[in-house]
């Protein structure tokens, strides 16, 4: 059975090729680059703030804006990483190692240009893999039962808990907090109210987008308020550079580029993990395979290539579990879940079968966003450094205002706006004590999936709890979760929260 038809392609091309579609995709890339490059605001926060702006739009313009921001945001975090040794997102921390050294050696323009090109290459390769893998994986996923979905959700939750902070216990605790928040509202099976405290607004559960804005936007702003108000961008005199100088660079590093793109895509496919792990794994692999004469850590171009190719390759990879089994590949795709649900679309195993044209639109939009990012990024790379210089005292209130307006856009009531600041302050306190935010978000998203599939799996199998260990795919996934956590713990935690 083919899930996608020629009519699906034509619809997607028509939507994406329209003037409004192209404009919103470009605006999304630009908005993503601005959020990603601004120190103290991550791509995830940017997407959470932008998402409410899409509520009045149809599917195609909404996705164009968000996917553009997704693509642009992951690349642009490399700008402050290279120029001021401050990664815009945790995914760009590996870029800072060699990128900043290149800038100190007078090659800042070259480093930024390489970051753009690598990001585009990684993103495009991952989109091709997405386009070929996702429909086939969706066909397999249609045969999964609740037992397998439960185990896959557990895999995603445990993986993100293991990689997001310095302590596995704290990561799991954060995930449990997210899952408890997900139980707020009316139980779908018995219509029982849970933890609504007589708030009518909570009958539908904790609204996802305001929770994301609070957890990623407000917490980062409060953290930024404590940090230095002045950002020094002083660099030594820069050497002249033209883009064609990069041609021999890429010719001699083509295999690192392809390998990094594949690493990023595979890591992106693993539920819940994200680009930070991808960039570190890719960087670590490049170091492991280094030859005499390589100067990793001292401004080696291979360091930038490995890190940046991998972290943008996650964009296509992370969309695979999102669109085939409804599990986010990284915290940013959790934002996309919120946007899709608002459009009345349930991402999951039936998404490609029932919405083939929308799936085609997504991967075409991701591909075109990478091309736009390439041209816009190269064309504006000398301007992007000014974003790094935006004073903190302007940036913080602007993002706060956008956050409040975004929360108000959900339902035009004060409840969501108030929720943002309450969750934001609570999240800030959690961060201060070493509890990461990403597992909370994934817990909120996966909590209902875990509960529903746990209940359905037990009912379908005469309440036998061992069914999760006796069905081979489920057992395999749970074993994979244990192996993955062990592997990640041995490679070192503290990716999202190095402190």
């Amino acid at each position: 059975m083919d899930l996608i038809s020629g009519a699906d392609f034509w619809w997607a091309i028509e939507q994406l090729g329209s003037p409004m579609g192209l404009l919103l995709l470009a605006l999304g890339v630009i908005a993503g680059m601005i959020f990603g490059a601004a120190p103290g605001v991550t791509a995830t926060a940017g997407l959470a703030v932008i998402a409410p702006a899409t509520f009045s739009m149809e599917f195609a313009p909404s996705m164009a804006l968000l996917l553009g921001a997704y693509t642009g945001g992951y690349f642009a975090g490399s700008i402050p990483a290279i120029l001021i040794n401050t990664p815009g997102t945790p995914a760009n921390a590996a870029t800072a190692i060699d990128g900043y050294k290149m800038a100190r050696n007078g090659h800042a323009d070259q480093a930024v240009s390489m970051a753009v090109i690598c990001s585009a290459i990684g993103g495009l390769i991952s989109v091709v893999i997405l386009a070929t893998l996702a429909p086939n994986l969706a066909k397999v996923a249609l045969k999964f039962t609740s037992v397998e979905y439960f185990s896959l959700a557990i895999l995603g939750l445990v993986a993100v808990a293991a990689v997001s902070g310095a302590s596995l216990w704290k990561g799991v605790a954060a995930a449990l907090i997210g899952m408890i928040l997900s139980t707020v509202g009316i139980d779908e099976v018995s219509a029982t109210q849970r933890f609504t405290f007589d708030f009518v607004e909570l009958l539908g559960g904790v609204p996802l987008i305001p929770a994301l804005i609070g957890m990623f936007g407000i917490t980062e702003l409060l953290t930024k308020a404590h940090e230095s108000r002045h950002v020094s961008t002083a660099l030594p005199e820069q050497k002249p550079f033209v883009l064609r100088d990069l041609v021999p660079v890429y010719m001699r590093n083509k295999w690192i580029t392809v390998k990094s793109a594949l690493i990023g895509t595979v890591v992106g496919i693993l539920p819940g993990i994200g680009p930070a792990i991808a960039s570190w794994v890719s960087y670590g692999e490049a170091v492991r395979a280094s030859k005499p004469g390589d100067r990793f850590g001292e401004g080696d171009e291979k360091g930038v290539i490995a890190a940046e190719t991998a972290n943008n390759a996650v964009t296509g990879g992370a969309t695979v579990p999102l669109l085939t089994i409804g599990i986010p590949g990284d915290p940013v795709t959790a934002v996309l879940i919120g946007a899709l649900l608002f459009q009345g679309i349930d991402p999951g195993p039936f998404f490609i079968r029932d919405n083939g044209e929308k799936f085609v639109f997504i991967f075409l939009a991701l591909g075109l966003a990478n091309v736009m990012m390439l041209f816009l990024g190269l064309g504006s790379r000398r301007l992007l450094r000014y974003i790094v210089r935006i004073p903190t005292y302007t940036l913080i209130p602007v993002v706060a205002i956008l956050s409040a307006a975004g929360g108000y856009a959900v339902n035009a009531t004060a409840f969501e706006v108030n929720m943002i600041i309450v969750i934001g302050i609570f999240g800030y306190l959690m961060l201060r004590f070493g509890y990461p935010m990403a597992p909370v978000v994934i817990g909120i998203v996966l909590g209902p999936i875990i509960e529903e599939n746990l209940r359905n799996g037990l009912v379908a199998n005469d309440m036998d709890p061992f069914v999760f260990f006796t069905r081979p795919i489920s057992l395999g996934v749970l074993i994979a979760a244990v192996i993955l956590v062990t592997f990640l713990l041995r490679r070192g935690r503290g990716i999202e929260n190095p402190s």
Partner: protein
Amino acid sequence: MIRHPDILSGTVLAVAGAAVLSASLQIDVVQLDRGLDAAFFPALCGGVLAAIGAVIAIKGLFAARTRLPFVADGRVAAVAGLFLLYFFTFTLVDFRVGAWAMLLVSMLALGARGVKELVIVPVAVAACIYLLFRYGLQISVPEWI
């Protein structure tokens, strides 16, 4: 004086988890012929959270003495207070006025001192954001007029 921050955070989590477990057991559930009732999952999550909180607190008891983490200085407290005021009064105040005031006061609290900057930036940025939401994105914001 608490010897390690994990003792405090772990204890808070253990208490919170126990509270969720207790509250879950008091949910007025509909008894189902088969399957798990509405209280099961939150009770399970609360119970596991309480256990993990206890583990974190106990690990803190045996860890080397460490100061509590920095939570807030004057700047952070001022910003948090401003955020609380702005967010809780967001729907009561005209967006244009509220955004301008938020920008002006926040910039002052965070150290901006240039007169031109304090005059121009709040007005310009508030206007741009209002126009973007109201006319660009067609999203309503609180307005007096």
